[in-house]
């Protein structure tokens, strides 16, 4: 296990360098930078602009800036946000927390519903329930995240503000609440975003579960299990389900990327203060270090998620072990 972990972590290094360098290059290709707006302002003298340029290192060549930034990242210093005038690290920490909560909650929501529905639907193949739920899954897969988010905002506004908040991370009077009320307030604000993000994931997972079970149900080891007289319940739970869950875990790891992207959109529509919205604002105002920090943290979340999924797969599937994974 230790060898596997070290190998995977070492593999991440070129990956992260590659991704951050491309983003860095892209951001420097943009005509103008954060200071171009200030330059337009006649009340700010050229000396101050120069001073700011030197302070943020915007006058240095690209590679120097990149290496400097990377060196800072190693020391957990992600640079300075030109827009918010605080260190990127402190900004990102709070926002990433919100995004992780949103992503994890919607994943749990999707799993809790997708697995049992997928099982029921597969065991009653071609029944009316199978048809209805499969069709609904198709709808859920096809509805764009942002469109569903708009619909939910509309729904919340239509229901009135006493029911569910149509957007935001917490209420205006959040700071005056007690701890329990704060948590309740947060959860209240998360219900709609989690629903929106969960629906898309749930639909895909349900279809995967259904096709997995249908495939495994007809395999030979299941027939053997039946032939040796196991009760149907044991056949389903011990043989069919356990095998059907494996691709699920792999898929969960890889669906993290979609989840982060979807979360960014939902955050933008519902004004949830997460990593995606932070990145969006940073991109809009060409706040280069904030963009870099957000992309980096997003990538790390994804990589760590994939790693966790692989470890979980080893734990669940005895046919897979760390040595076979490392050699892949």
């Amino acid at each position, binding site marked *: 296990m230790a060898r596997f972990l070290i190998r995977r972590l070492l593999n991440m290094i070129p990956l992260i360098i590659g991704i951050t360098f*491309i983003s860095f290059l892209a951001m420097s290709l943009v005509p103008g930078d954060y200071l171009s707006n200030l330059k337009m302002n006649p009340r700010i003298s050229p000396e101050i602009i120069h001073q700011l340029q030197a302070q943020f290192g915007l006058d240095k060549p690209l590679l120097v800036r990149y290496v400097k930034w990377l060196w800072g990242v190693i020391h957990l210093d992600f640079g300075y946000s030109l827009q918010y005038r605080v260190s990127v690290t402190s900004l990102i920490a709070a926002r990433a927390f919100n995004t992780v909560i949103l992503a994890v909650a919607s994943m749990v929501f999707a799993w809790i519903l997708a697995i049992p529905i997928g099982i029921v639907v597969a065991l009653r193949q071609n029944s009316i329930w199978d048809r209805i739920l499969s069709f609904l899954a198709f709808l859920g897969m096809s509805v764009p995240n942002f469109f569903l988010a708009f*619909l939910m905002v509309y729904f919340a*506004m239509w229901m009135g503000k006493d029911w569910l908040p149509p957007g935001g991370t917490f209420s205006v009077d959040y700071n005056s609440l007690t701890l329990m009320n704060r948590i309740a307030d947060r959860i209240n604000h998360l219900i709609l975003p989690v629903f929106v993000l969960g629906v898309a994931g749930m639909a895909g997972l349900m279809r995967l579960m259904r096709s997995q079970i249908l*495939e495994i149900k007809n395999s030979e080891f299941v027939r053997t299990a039946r032939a040796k007289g196991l009760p149907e319940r044991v056949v389903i739970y011990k043989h069919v389900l356990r095998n059907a869950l494996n691709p699920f875990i792999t898929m969960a790891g890889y669906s993290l990327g979609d989840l*982060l*992207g979807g979360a960014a959109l939902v955050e933008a529509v519902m004004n949830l203060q997460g990593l995606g919205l932070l*990145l969006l604002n940073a*991109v809009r105002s060409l706040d280069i270090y904030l963009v870099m920090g957000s992309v980096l943290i*997003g990538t790390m979340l994804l990589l760590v998620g994939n790693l966790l999924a692989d470890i979980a797969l080893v734990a669940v599937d005895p046919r897979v072990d760390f040595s076979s994974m490392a050699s892949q």
Partner: protein
Amino acid sequence: MSAPVTTLPRLQAAAVAGPIRGGLAREWRLASRTVRASVICLVVFYLFAAFSPFFAPYDPIYQNRSMPDCPPMRLHLSAPSQWGYGVFWTYPLHMVDAEERSYAPDRNHRIYIHLFSRGHLFTTDSEQAPFYLMGSDGLGRDLFSRIVYGARVSMCVGLIGVLISFSLGIAVGALSGYVGGLTDNLIMRWSEIEMSLPSFYFLLALAAVIPPGISAAQRFLLIVAIMSFISWAGLARVIRGMSSSVRSLPYVEAGRALGGSRWRIITRHVIPSVLGYAIVAATLSIPGFILGESALSLLGLGIQEPTPSWGNLLSQAEDPQNLVRYPWILIPGIFIFLTVMAFNFLGDHLRDRLDPSSSF
């Protein structure tokens, strides 16, 4: 010319070309109702894109300043004696409260709607007395006309994107599988980098590169290029894996043993067996492009005003107040939804027809 005749290639050809050979009429009969509806839906949207000036009743950027945020108007059928004026008519709407932007019908007048008139499918005598099938936006532009013109962007982005990413994916995948060695290794590591990207974050960061001053067409192409750049890698990996596995399949070896030339084996055996998968994958990857463009345009980083796209038409809904007062501004979202769903249904159906080996 003719290869040594055995039953093996013929069986193989029948298995591969079977679904296509029956012709389109047979395919249509075999398709389920949902698939037929999807195809019709897509054909209509592509017609929108191809003949926007005909389907759109008005100029998509003409601003009727006296009618911003006008609700969709109700269509009435004329009495047969009035059909000389127009088969359909509507009451003109007048703004009663400029603050609330509420409208009331003027029941003393009628606006007649002319079919196939002045080069439009339907239109009224003037843009001053319009018929807003789906309402108007905040600047008094006809939403339906903007949706029809927006189909140009939203429907083309998928096709062009798939074209680019597939030619890249197939070329690189085939090269990687064929050359092998260090090249193969480097290309595959690179594709791994691209696949483990948080693609939407990356898309956002790259979209900032697009300079503000360029034309709508250039902007469109840049957006498609960026999205293709992000999405070709997964395909290249699969094509590489498939072409190398097909190469050693018994029927390909049989073809080789029978003296088939390399060209013949590639065109008659390898490509057909990969093609089914490629068509399915292409159909199923189109929604990703459409959604990517819509999301970027919605966030203001994609297609810019006044050029309409289904994504940037939705950006008015970002203000919840607008959403509640003028819910018809969500209609473009329904078009995106229908398109994505149609491609999903079609792709699913094609997978059953062309690629029976995969169940999911």
